């Protein structure tokens, strides 16, 4: 019984933190936020060179053969640093879809490429408001070509290929689609967090290759969602840490009424509440990490729990960090809104808190019954 990461994993985390502290300052994040670039390509290249996208890919498929626990600690640092790269889209989503839904041959071909960052993947599932719902999917494939449209596709405007959920003869499947082809038009969408940009993808008879794995698409997508939920929860608690740290530093240095602002009980208790909700989320994320790494039956419940806690925690920590800064927290100049924007983006992708609470209860009552 050991409820902590191993020393090796902590070492990987420390390396990641140091690297990102040096290479991914908020000043650099702002280049993407302020539209100088649609994502931080040089940073992405460095991350690829470090092999992070290959962390949870088997060695015989060109991966590092580490595991999900190692990916979790990296995720926490990506979240802390607000890294403006398609790590979520390509690593947590596209790569996991391939691992779960592709045929052996497809995996052998694609996973080494994804691990090596030869192409950036994304997941195109949602077509309308509300969380992904297979029943309402209108994207359709016939004779190997895909038509229809997807929206709110994370990093969809810059990805090379998309994993698309579509129906063929009324049956849901997952398809790999080359996004540079003629049959695909895409439009970047203004969104709350330009550093995790969204796009609309429109397919008009686009060539699409069906993923040929044995698992049916619905099961695969559900499992990808659970895995990604755990990984996102680590990005979220990384962000919570950073926001609380900001609030601590500012209120400790700032004076009002002749005292440090952080010496006022109302501020101390505000920060204490941020700590409490963050630590609950962290503990739930750890449990999710274990369930993920052990591929345990508890994964669906643990993932939903980690996700709901992380959504609540990051919303509170990022919004109260703004308040703790007073007026300056409302300025573009201060970094508070970077975390608040990211909190919104991470809470909405993969469906919001109401959807995941319902997931949680469903699994809870089943497992408890």
């Amino acid at each position: 019984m050991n409820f902590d990461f191993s020393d090796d994993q902590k070492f990987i985390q420390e390396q990641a933190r140091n690297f990102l502290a040096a290479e991914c300052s908020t000043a650099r994040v702002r280049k993407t936020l302020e539209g100088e670039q649609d994502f931080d390509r040089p940073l992405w290249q460095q991350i690829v060179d470090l092999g992070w996208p290959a962390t949870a890919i088997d060695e015989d498929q060109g991966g590092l053969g580490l595991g999900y626990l190692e990916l979790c600690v990296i995720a926490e640092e990506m979240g802390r640093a607000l890294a403006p790269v398609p790590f979520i889209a390509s690593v947590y989503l596209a790569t996991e879809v391939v691992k779960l839904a592709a045929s052996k041959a497809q995996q052998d071909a694609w996973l080494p490429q994804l691990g090596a960052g030869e192409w950036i993947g994304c997941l195109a599932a949602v077509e309308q408001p509300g969380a992904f719902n297979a029943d309402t999917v209108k994207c359709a494939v016939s004779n190997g070509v895909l038509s229809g449209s997807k929206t709110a596709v994370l990093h969809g405007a810059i990805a090379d290929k998309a994993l698309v959920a579509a129906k063929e003869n009324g049956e849901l499947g997952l398809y790999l689609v080359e996004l540079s082809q003629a049959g695909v038009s895409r439009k970047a969408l203004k969104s709350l967090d330009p550093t995790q940009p969204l796009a609309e993808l429109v397919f008009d008879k686009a060539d699409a290759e069906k993923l040929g794995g044995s698992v049916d698409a619905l099961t695969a997508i559900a499992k990808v969602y659970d895995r990604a939920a755990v990984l996102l929860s680590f990005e979220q608690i990384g962000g919570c840490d950073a926001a609380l740290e900001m609030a601590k530093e500012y209120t400790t240095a700032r004076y009002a009424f002749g005292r440090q602002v952080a010496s006022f009980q109302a501020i101390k208790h505000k920060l204490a509440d941020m700590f409490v909700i963050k630590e609950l989320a962290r503990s739930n994320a750890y449990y999710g990490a274990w369930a993920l790494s052990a591929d345990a039956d508890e994964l669906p419940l643990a993932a939903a729990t980690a996700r709901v806690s992380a959504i609540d925690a990051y919303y509170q920590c990022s919004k109260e960090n703004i308040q703790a800064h007073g007026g300056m927290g409302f300025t573009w100049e201060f970094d508070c809104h970077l975390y608040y924007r990211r909190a919104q983006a991470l809470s909405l992708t993969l469906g919001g808190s109401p959807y995941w609470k319902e997931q949680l209860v469903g699994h809870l009552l089943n497992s408890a019954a």
Partner: protein
Amino acid sequence: MDFKDSPEQAEFRQQVQTWLKANAKPKTGDSVRGSQEGRYEQAKVWYKKVFDAGYACITWPKEYGGAGLSQIHKVIWSQEVAKYDEPDGYFVIGQGNCGPAIMQFASEAQKTELLPRMASAEDVWCQLFSEPSAGSDVAGLRTKAEQKGDKWIVNGQKIWTSGAQHSDYGVILCRTDPDISKYRGMTMFFIDMKQAGVDVQPITQMDGGSHFNEVFFNNAEIPDSQRLGDVGGGWGAALLVLMNERLAISGIQPDGFPELLKLVQTLEIDGEPLRNNPLVRERLAHWYCQHAGIKASTNRMLTAVAKGGMPGAEAALGKLVGAVMNQDIANYALQLMGDTGAICEETLAEQHAHFQNTVMFAPGIRLAGGTDEVMRNIIAEQVLGLPQEPRADKGIAFKDIPSGNQG
């Protein structure tokens, strides 16, 4: 206890309705709002029209450009004008905050000259209290005014000044004596904003907009005739201004409920109307109780004021509750929409991206006019009469108060 108009009030409402019908722009529902500049110019034109019709600054005496009527009449006006696509309370800070200060402290000549032009929005006024190092602690301000003959020379910086870029005048609170205690060393003036030595710089907010400014004073001049109240009497004067501000903003601050109600009545998710979703219904009930409670509390306060009372610190509760629910409602609406909730395109997102815009602007509403903590302090000390905390800034010279050398 009666929500119907008295015969006299009913007649006034009738007049207002007739005039608005003839002069105001009807709501077109889907009108996407124009540029900030454009809206400002339209507002000036509209206010002149309102002034000429005698409906400007309804509670002010006639001789100063008002209508000499009661708070209740003002409420009736606001209720009726709200039915049209015309701005109300656009110059609320000038007319609501600066106006009473001028009325209280300026000379008769100044009042008859300045107030009508303020009421007609020919002159625009701003309020210059907050500073980078004086936020929640307004009285910690450091902008210096030094007397030189019959003039005061002003140096320093103000912040969060809305409308400064358009303003002809500003009511400013300055430190006139750093060697005596904090609250006794301030003096209030009104200053010509168009003079050299006054530099207005817009602040970019976290949402990308800029409704506020920084104002830098570099040897700006104020004739002593523009002093409002006694030298050293600035804090008392400021409290009067802030008390009126509460009344001015109460009831006009957004709490986000009407837009949520509209969303629930219109949006379907996966073919299921939100109105049928029990979770949404529960949240709607919860927030309606707060929405209705704020509205009714404002009406109670207006009744008290109409009976001759002063707007109490109770107004702080509407600000506190409304600002927090405004943020949480917007966040909740996005959560319901899931992945697409993050999309800010005005043409795609519900109600011209109202909820996305609100999520990004709401933190400022919570901060403007005092943080949640300041509101709770006001209620605890001024309403409940609870003791102050031990003060680290009392009974010593302002210049000796610990400041961490900030600002």
